[in-house]
């Protein structure tokens, strides 16, 4: 049932469905059971906090969610656990929606490439996510160009080229070890020359603690802005769904060096809930815009707080 929402056009995939099935057990079943037990007591609140922490929601946010729930239950003198459950659900959705309001409206202008810069730490799934984003924009009939900006990691260029061939998307690439700035410069020229609608810039994975590498991102951004002043119109930070509390630090540090406009949570087809999204939304207000749920180019969907919260925390069996 999650598939209805989380996937766009492609047909349901049995294997993926199985994967999400697993994700859906675990935490949300336990949350449901917790409220089914019937009493709103200290044990329930304590267990709820544990369940949220188990989903990587983090200590601070879990405390806050539970405290708010408790306050409202006491204020309204609620005794019905299901009503309390609904309050929690709404709180969680609201928390995420708060940051969704910061999503900027992006307009594709004729003759101006819509530049998407994709950044993140090593191994989060940037390259695969880029392939998915390319397919996503192709789905709207847009012409896409990819810049192989990861000139550092061995065979990263080959990897993105394989995707380019599969999707029939041209890839602008230099040799490994080259200057990523030069690749980006060439790609900007190519995007104009070929009148590409969308240009996606791959970048090498880097830990947010590496000062020089973070500064390099700023330079790449400056190169893009030489030809298109308001570009990149979208700067996406990819976060691995299994990431723990370090995800918040990542988001902070990347935001400081390049203005992150959107977050993509990758690998949400595993058992991880990506609960760090709540901390990022609450602390930084950066909208989660996309989620990745598999290894195929079509496994990308737009993020919707309600669907996400229902599917991963409460089960989506009710009210649908």
């Amino acid at each position, binding site marked *: 049932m999650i598939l209805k929402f989380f996937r766009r056009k492609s047909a349901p995939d049995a294997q993926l469905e199985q994967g999400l099935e697993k994700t859906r057990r675990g935490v949300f079943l336990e949350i449901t059971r917790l409220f089914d037990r019937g009493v709103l007591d200290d044990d329930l609140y304590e267990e709820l906090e544990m369940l949220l922490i188990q989903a990587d929601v983090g200590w601070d946010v879990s405390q806050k969610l539970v405290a708010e729930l408790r306050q409202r239950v006491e204020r309204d003198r609620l005794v019905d656990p299901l009503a309390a459950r609904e309050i929690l659900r709404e709180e969680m959705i609201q928390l995420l929606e708060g940051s969704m309001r910061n999503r900027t409206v992006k307009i594709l202008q004729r003759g101006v490439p819509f530049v998407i810069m994709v950044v993140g730490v090593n191994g989060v799934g940037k390259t695969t996510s880029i392939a998915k984003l390319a397919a996503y924009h192709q789905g709207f009939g847009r012409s896409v160009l990819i810049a192989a900006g990861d000139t550092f990691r*061995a065979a*990263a260029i080959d990897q993105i080229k394989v995707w380019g061939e599969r999707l029939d998307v041209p890839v602008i690439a230099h040799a490994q070890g080259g200057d990523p700035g030069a690749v980006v410069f060439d790609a900007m020229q190519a995007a104009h020359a070929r009148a590409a609608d969308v240009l996606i810039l791959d970048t090498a994975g880097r830990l947010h603690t590496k000062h020089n590498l973070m500064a390099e991102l700023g330079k790449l951004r400056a190169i893009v802005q030489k030809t298109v002043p308001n570009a990149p119109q979208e700067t996406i930070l990819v976060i691995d769904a299994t990431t723990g509390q370090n995800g918040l630090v990542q988001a902070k540090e990347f935001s400081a060096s390049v203005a992150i406009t959107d977050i993509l949570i990758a690998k949400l087809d595993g058992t*991880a809930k990506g609960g760090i999204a709540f901390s990022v939304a609450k602390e930084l207000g950066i909208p989660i815009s996309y989620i990745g749920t598999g290894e195929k180019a079509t496994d990308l969907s737009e993020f919707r707080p309600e669907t996400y919260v229902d599917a991963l925390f409460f089960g989506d069996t009710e009210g649908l």
Partner: protein
Amino acid sequence: MFETLSDRLAESLGRLSRKGRLTEQDVDNAMREVRRALLEADVNFKVARDFVASVRERAVGQDVLKSLTPGQTVIGIVNEELVTILGAEREPLRNPDRPPQILMLVGLQGSGKTTHAAKLAAHLRKDGRSPLMVAGDVYRPAAINQLQALGRQINIPVYEEGVNSDPVNIAINGVAHARERGLNPVIIDTAGRLQIDEPMMQELVNVEQRVHPTEILLVADAMTGQEAVNVADAFNQKLSITGLILTKMDGDARGGAALSIRSVTGIPIKFIGSGEKIDALEPFYPQRLASRILGMGDVVSLIERAQEQTSEADALKMQDRLVKGQFNLEDFLDQLQKVKKMGPLSQLLELIPGMGSQLRQAKAEISDDDYKQIEAIIRSMTNTERRNPHIIDGRRRRRIARGSGTSREEVSQLLKQFSEMQKMMSQIGSMAKKGRLPKNMPFDLG
């Protein structure tokens, strides 16, 4: 949010100690802080609960309640317990009954398997061995090219059969290939996979049954959250995992995942990946990770990094000065010069143990441009002032500010931060001298 467990404990218990004895209630409050810090370090919630219970049991004992510095005593207990869980002894790689030694790397997507196959190969070659790497990831685009490129870079052969072959056969043929040529060890790279992906997990089981690896090493990302345990447990149930390689430890993740995995599955941590360079692979030292989870700083790493820039004798002298609380502004300036070559200043400060929250606050505000300012301020001091910062009075401050083109407030701030740091370090140092610290505090170079 960067406030660390050791700060919090020292703060909350330290305040109480001035009033007199600790009550059980105080210990409970402290345990709450411990639990919170563990959870913020991504320690699995069950592991955190059990851990707190065992620390509490020890902490309510006589020695803590009577101790003059209960904060430090509790930190000591937490530290000891952490080291116990992480495995007090370092476990080396196993030797096979007959060669070659076969090391198979498994894990989730993006954990760093391919990179670490190469790191491991380069590491083992240092012992005079001739490794072979086997390209078993036929799924991820260009994964084979990646391993080949790494192989060329470090001049280690790679066995591959392209993407149309079966990973099980590739592994079997790879081992046969190594036998024929007398290559040893064989390092098998495999595709990243979700632990819930049955067919993919079965594939690994088949490889295990056919080639009988000497070691199956789970490669796990240090930044992993609460799922780490489930992932490791699932891999361990299907395969006999013999060790863990914890990657991306050069970031600032606290690495609680490692603690959880070790505690729940008992899998020993064998290596730490600490950078993108091929030689960034270190044997695992439990004490260092314990310090990191506690947020106590890591003098050993500090010294090691300094060693890259200076001689061993100099580094040892520095260690001695740190422990004895003789670290002065001259040393600080000297370190600044060296650390400029190593990376941002904030990283050095992070490594200094017992950093007070004020200093941490300051750290957050220090950017690389501030290097210059700090340098200018210290350089505007006389040698005597650098060695004895306490003699710097109002007039000296004014002169230093003028000399360095800063304000008196800025000079004062630097001095205040420095004295804070010095105080903390000499405290720890004197405790070490009196033998009040557990044996394996960060100074144990073990």
